[in-house]
């Protein structure tokens, strides 16, 4: 542990439940180590709040190693904070300086209603996945790996798309609250692989329709999503989603 600790001023969005209004509440945090992760710093704050008999700050977290997509904090005006390709749980306090004010807000989008404080309901993503983000496979013997040849670059690209952890940073960062990067990653990942081809048309149509139904905005290609995605998902996948969609609507029977 580093010897010198920092004092951080936090402004955190507090909101009792879905239906209440909310506001930024200021907390001063002495004794913050630069080696702490951002979420550990919040744990420390909560420990203090609980000891004082106050309500702890609700925030989403699970794996704390950047793979589950649960953490979702809008930190100082950026989804997952100021670093690129990093989730909030992988952010460390050494990114900030002594005396700094850090503003923490929840993801803001109509399809992501706030449940409490910094926790939002992202089940809209689950509903999009449920209408097409899968392949239908009959059970039976596992086919031999070499029976379905896939070129290395194609496999790589499908893997890049599959890296999406569904955190919703793309929606949070987009000025239109659009979910195009998320949906494009999920459509791309399967459209690229032979296993995904059978349900290609139905998948893209259903997922795009559900995305619109949930109330996400329309993509105007600002590419803020790509810049904020902790998994560096490229907007090339959005181009592919658009191609898949046009193909489904105009070419494929």
């Amino acid at each position, binding site marked *: 542990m580093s010897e010198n600790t920092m004092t951080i001023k936090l402004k955190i969005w507090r909101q009792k439940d879905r239906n209440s209004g909310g506001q930024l509440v200021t907390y001063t945090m002495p004794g913050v180590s630069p080696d702490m992760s951002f979420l550990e710093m919040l744990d420390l704050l909560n420990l203090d709040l609980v000891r004082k008999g106050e309500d702890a700050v609700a925030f989403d977290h699970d794996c704390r190693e950047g793979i589950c997509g649960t953490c979702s904090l809008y930190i*100082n*005006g*950026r989804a997952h904070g100021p670093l690129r390709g990093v989730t909030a749980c992988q952010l460390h306090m050494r990114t900030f300086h002594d005396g700094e004010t850090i503003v923490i807000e929840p993801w803001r989008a109509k399809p992501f209603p706030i449940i409490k404080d910094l926790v939002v309901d992202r089940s809209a993503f689950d509903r999009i996945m449920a209408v097409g983000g899968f392949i239908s496979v009959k059970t039976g013997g596992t086919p031999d790996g070499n029976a379905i040849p896939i070129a290395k670059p194609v496999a790589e690209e499908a893997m890049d798309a599959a890296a999406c952890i569904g955190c919703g940073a793309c929606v949070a960062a987009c000025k239109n609250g*659009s979910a195009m990067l998320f949906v494009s990653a999920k459509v791309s990942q399967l459209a690229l692989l032979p296993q995904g081809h059978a349900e290609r048309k139905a998948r893209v149509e259903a997922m795009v329709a559900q995305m619109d139904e949930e*109330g996400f905005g329309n993509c105007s290609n600002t590419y803020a999503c790509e810049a904020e995605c902790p998994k560096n998902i490229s907007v090339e996948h959005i*181009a*592919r989603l658009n191609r*898949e969609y046009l193909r489904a609507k105009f070419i494929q029977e």
Partner: protein
Amino acid sequence: MALSGLFLCSFLVIHLTINLFALQANHDKTAESFWGAEMFETYGHFMATHPVIRPLEWGLFAGFLLHAILGIYLYLLNRKARPVQYEVNKAGENSTWSSRFGWLTGILVGVFLVVHVNTFFVQSRFFGQEPMIRLMIEAFSSPAYVAFYMVALVFLAYHLKHGFQSAFQTFGLRAGKFEKLVNAVGVVFWLLIPIGFAIIPLYFLFAY
């Protein structure tokens, strides 16, 4: 949106091509007999009277209207996807100004177009006997009017800096090998075309 935008882009090319002929007017101040100026007037006359072009004119007008209405409608619709704004939002760190303010640069280009169409199109079609080149010489003798054009062209440049490649992204064509091509042609559209247009009023103001 993307289709109407690219349609307007194609119009810009034709518009600029014809207008650049007007630069030749310098060589003969009566603007009656020189080749370039004559071409300009001939094309202008052709455009104004030809039975095929007249319906296209309505098409162009409809194209602008559709583009503007659709653009503003989508902008307002998208705002609804975030009813509560962030208290702190550093959008400048993840996206370009031109990409976030396409709606604003579009509206400003639209304001310019109203003035522009009134100065030239309305005057020559409904009121004027004067040749177009006279209207240009007259209008562009005012530094204030020329300055207004320069500002409008900067907005057009920003509008197209985002808009051109955005339209190709919407069609799924800004990817792989095409990405470089789209970006290169994009520079022609957002940089060279506004510069081309800017030359004309500047020329009439300073060199004529």
